[in-house]
């Protein structure tokens, strides 16, 4: 089709302007792809960090405790019995079970005091569920039967503490009387989840139970499953508890992380807004280009009309040109985006550049966000870009094609 050929050849006119528009579109597209990659990477890392260092894949607790779990109250605790253990063990696909006793405490180094969250853990079971042990940077996790503590490096820096120092945890017992836990630091941990580093003290479960005077109670039981099986196992456990007339309930990590998920959804909304801006930039670029081309080629349009070309045939010539710009801009944008996303996936983006760690922005990521590949975003953006290019060229092209032939021919 000759009009198609002419449209393509017209791409070689006004090279500088076309290249500029192609670059603007490419920059907008690649920026979107980078933001999308960063957001997806941040979401993946946030969810991994929640699962691997805070909630496990599933948490089992009494609903009354669960609702107020952030209060760290010593009420509605679980007193483990045979029925509970059987129900939990009967669930398919469990890779680890870790009981936890969470409590409020004030950490005292002899000079200063700071509020922390104490977590009583059974170290062998904890290690089956969480990956914290892999991030001990000084000392080690305490051994089974050892009465020592593990704290985060940020907390240690804040309180000027090192391995083998003694700390005092001031706690309130179940009866609301004061008690203390004097304990030696076995190790310092620097986990990818900043919450672990900033304000948590891990102590042996039996030490915590004794200090809090709660018998064999735990706050909750965290479970590790194969990733993706959470919902199935959660349902299975809840059914099992119901069958045994236990008031316990299983909660998938998604319920624990609802605030982070909501934040992630809000960020995706932000990405949608960025996408709209990107497409608007592309659209304005194309419209601007078609209008300028039509103004420059007025007498040529007149000649086309004199030759007997119909309006839609002239529109088609401009649309081919605009589509070509959309395709080239989209391709360049995807190539730039590919390079940028590759770098983000490999090297990541340091949160330190914008100050502090992720916890300051409500995301459970310590210091570096890595991008994630989202291949459909590339094809989606490219196709959408071309469609927008075609659509946004139609009106200005019709405006050009509707010119009065006499005025157009003698236009100077």
């Amino acid at each position, binding site marked *: 089709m*000759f009009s198609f*050929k*002419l449209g393509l*050849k*017209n791409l*070689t*006119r006004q090279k500088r302007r076309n290249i500029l528009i192609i670059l603007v579109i490419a920059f907008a597209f690649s920026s979107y792809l980078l933001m999308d990659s960063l957001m997806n990477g941040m979401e993946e890392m946030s969810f991994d960090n929640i699962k691997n260092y805070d909630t496990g894949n599933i948490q089992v607790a009494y609903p009354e405790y669960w609702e107020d779990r952030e209060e760290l109250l010593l009420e509605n605790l679980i007193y483990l019995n045979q029925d509970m253990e059987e129900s939990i063990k009967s669930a398919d696909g469990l890779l680890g079970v870790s009981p936890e006793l969470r409590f409020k405490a004030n950490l005292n180094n002899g000079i200063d005091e700071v509020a922390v969250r104490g977590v009583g853990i059974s170290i062998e079971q904890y290690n089956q569920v969480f990956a914290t042990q892999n991030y001990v940077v000084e000392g080690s996790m305490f051994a089974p039967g050892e009465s020592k503590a593990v704290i985060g490096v940020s907390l240690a820096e804040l309180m000027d503490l090192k391995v083998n120092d003694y700390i005092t945890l001031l706690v309130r017992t179940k009866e609301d009387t004061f008690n203390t836990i004097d304990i030696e630091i076995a190790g310092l941990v620097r986990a990818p989840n900043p919450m672990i580093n900033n304000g948590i003290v891990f102590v042996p479960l039996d030490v915590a139970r004794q200090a809090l005077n709660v018998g064999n109670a735990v706050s909750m039981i965290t479970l590790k499953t194969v990733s993706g099986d959470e919902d199935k196992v959660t349902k299975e456990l809840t059914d099992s508890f119901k069958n045994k007339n236990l008031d316990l309930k299983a909660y998938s990590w998604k319920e624990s992380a609802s605030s982070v998920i909501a934040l992630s959804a809000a960020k995706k909304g932000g990405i949608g807004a960025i996408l709209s801006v990107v497409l608007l930039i592309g659209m304005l670029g194309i419209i601007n280009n078609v209008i300028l081309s039509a103004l420059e080629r007025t*007498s*040529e349009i*007149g*000649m086309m*009309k*004199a*030759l*007997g*070309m*119909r309006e839609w045939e002239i529109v088609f010539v401009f649309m081919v040109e605009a589509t070509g710009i959309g395709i080239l801009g989209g391709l360049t944008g995807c190539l730039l985006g590919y390079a940028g996303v590759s770098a983000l996936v490999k090297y990541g983006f340091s949160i330190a550049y914008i100050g502090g760690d992720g916890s300051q922005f409500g995301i459970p990521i310590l210091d570096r966000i890595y991008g994630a590949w989202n291949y459909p975003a590339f094809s989606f953006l490219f196709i959408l870009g071309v469609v927008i290019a075609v659509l946004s060229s139609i009106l200005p092209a019709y405006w050009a094609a509707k010119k009065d*032939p*006499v005025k157009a*021919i*003698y236009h100077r």
Partner: protein
Amino acid sequence: MALLELNKVKKIYQQGKIEVPALRGVDLEVEEGEFTTIFGPSGSGKTTLLNMIGCLDTPTEGEVSLSGKKVSDLSKKALAMVRRFNIGFVFQAYNLIPVLTAYENVEFAIRLTDHSSESQMKEKVLKMLAEVGLKGLESRRPNELSGGEKQRVAIARALVKEPKIVLADEPTANLDSETAADVVNIMRKMNKELGTTFIFSTHDPAVMKHANRFINLKDGMIFADERGK
């Protein structure tokens, strides 16, 4: 039956509240194969008359008929089709497409009307370019051609679709006298060889003398209409 008939054609342009008459009732008949020149002072209505004949514009009053068919009250779409199949144009400023070669500029016109095979179409385009003396220059773009060569491409573009009539508005105005004579000779040659009707406007007496009919336009009316040899 005349190829072209104009019956009391008037054209009035509205400029704000003022009406400016460009044609004041033109009656004209042009037979097939004529080589007609329209001349007259600036503002006499030459271009307006050519636009009416070329179906680029419609008269305010009166009728224009081509091959006996009234075209003056056709829709824009229908007028485009009349132009596509029946009329060729040659403009003073050539109006070639700069990104296309000489060959492609001519091919552009024939593609709109001719649906014969690629090889036949190619043959027609090459033949037409050779006829206007552009053999060997087919692959040059307009910026690689002289003014005269550009106008020859425009003539080839107008003729390649074998129209009933070719309209040329001051086709030699941008050319030096020698080149202008060449261009008008080519037009005359094509008129004789193909029998195509030519109507062209000019100010140049040297160009005018090649015509076999002379229409003198003055104040939007035909002042004189003479036939030569």
